């Protein structure tokens, strides 16, 4: 059995099928890319994995345990962390307090939570702004805070939802470095990304979906050369 598996996942919102029969396996220690045009069902897939809503049908298996339909907070405790595409900073808390709140998922004392939080901020390069209110961070800082908060829950599997969107070229390089560091740290990563440079550079394997259905899977090179992927992104003329 794979380390992490999504099996025949389906999500219907009324008459709309957002995700239709998606299956993939992720190996421990991998950086696994999930790509597809806007509205193809990537974030919906993340939401089902992280328990925002249950799938209509299908299974999500993490370390031999079915987690589909569980509540978000339980999935977090099992070791699956996530970031949100539309960032959700705890606005009127400082950056440090945001991460302390996350650290409390693994420890109970204030002292331990604070030291975990400080280490995580250091790891993510947010130490200089730790006393700033989260709502006054610029977008790059907020994206980074999403990652820091998720990392403070000590996930084994981290779901990154477009953490590079809206960043400038320098920030992009830093973001890629950070994601690599997270993997070296022993965390498995599934990443949704629109910026092809990022996803092609860091992913070990990529799974492409369109209209909620799988269209390709393989190494970045294989997927980039796949006619179905080119068609989905550029139209039939280029396929």
């Amino acid at each position: 059995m794979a380390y992490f598996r999504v099996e025949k996942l389906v999500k219907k919102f009324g008459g709309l099928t957002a995700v239709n029969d998606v299956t993939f396996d992720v190996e421990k220690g991998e950086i696994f890319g999930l790509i597809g045009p806007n509205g193809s069902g990537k974030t919906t897939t993340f939401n089902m994995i992280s328990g925002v809503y249950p799938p209509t049908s299908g299974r999500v298996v993490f370390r031999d345990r079915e987690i589909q339909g569980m509540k978000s907070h339980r999935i977090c405790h099992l070791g699956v962390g996530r970031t949100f595409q539309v960032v959700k900073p705890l606005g009127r808390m400082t950056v440090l307090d945001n991460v302390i709140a996350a650290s409390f998922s693994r420890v109970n004392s204030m002292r331990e939570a604070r030291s975990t939080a400080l280490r995580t901020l250091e790891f993510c390069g947010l130490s200089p702004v730790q006393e700033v209110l989260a709502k006054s961070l610029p977008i790059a800082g907020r994206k980074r805070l999403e990652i820091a908060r998720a990392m403070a829950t000590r996930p084994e599997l981290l779901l990154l939802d477009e953490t590079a969107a809206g960043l400038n070229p320098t920030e992009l390089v830093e973001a890629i470095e950070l994601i690599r560091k997270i993997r070296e740290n022993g965390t498995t990563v599934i990443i949704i990304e629109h910026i092809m440079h990022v996803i092609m550079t860091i992913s070990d394997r990529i799974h492409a979906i369109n209209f909620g259905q799988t269209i390709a899977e393989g190494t970045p090179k294989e997927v980039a050369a796949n006619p179905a992927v080119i068609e989905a992104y550029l139209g039939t003329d280029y396929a």
Partner: protein
Amino acid sequence: MKKHLYPLILLAFLALLPLAVKSNYFLHLMILFLLWVVIGSSWNILAGYTGQVSFGHAAFFGVGAYTAGLLFQHLQLSPWWGMALGGVVAVLIGLPFGAICFPLRGAYFALASLALGEGIRHITTIAEGFTGGMMGIMIMPTFTSKVPYYYIALGLAILSVASIQAIISSKPGYYFVSIREDQDAAASLGINTTLYKNISLAISAFWTGMAGALYMNYMGFIDPHVVFSLHDYSVMAILVAIVGGVGTIYGPTVGAFIMVAFQELFRTGFFGLFEYLGKATGSPAFTTLSGAIHQAHVLGFGILVIVVILFLPNGVVGDWEKIKRNVFRINPAG
């Protein structure tokens, strides 16, 4: 220690106050103030810190008061037992509502809390055989002096504020504020949002119920329209917190002081100023005005709230820096 300097000075002042002030009238006002510190701080932990606005804190207050009164009436237990149980019964009344409403988001809890307060008022009125209905409950106060009540109220205020402060600066406090700021983010960080909203509700209901039980002991008389009053308790609890500062530890304390003073100011027609002016000048206009002001305290609250929302949206404590800055600008010598 510097951070605790002002509260400690205030505490010492409050502890020594009865030695200096012998007036029953002022002690009565101080007891009301201390009761409002408890109720306002309780409302604040649920609404200000956890983001779950309650329009029905009169339910917890009244249930606490009735617990003390009914234990005396039916079981001849000293109403001080009610102090021990009033908070617990308030929690038992609140939790089923939390269990139903908190898995949902949005205004459901706020609306249900409004219904809870009004519903219990009606039930208490109708169940005459058990509660005495509109006749209310009368007990003989234990002490004739106000001083013991003052110290009990002070103790209750200290315990409630100190415990709330301790909770806020530990794990549950961080979880409460996370839930207030963003429920989805909170859930993704491993926070059981329903459970922690219920914990916050339980703490809030407990202290409010204790305040109600003390009220029964102190006033010696309650009826459903007094202790379950929507505007005298449920709304007043909100005003105390808003004026002082929602989501700040000492906001409700400051708000309680302002609101009790403000209410008294209107109730007494600016401490008899207009009545005095009426007598001194012989003008009937002042006498009429004195009567009108006496009735106008609700209007006064309305104006106060508008002023606070316009100029101090975070309350007196929340906007303290702003107040200091503006006062210094107006008065450079200061």
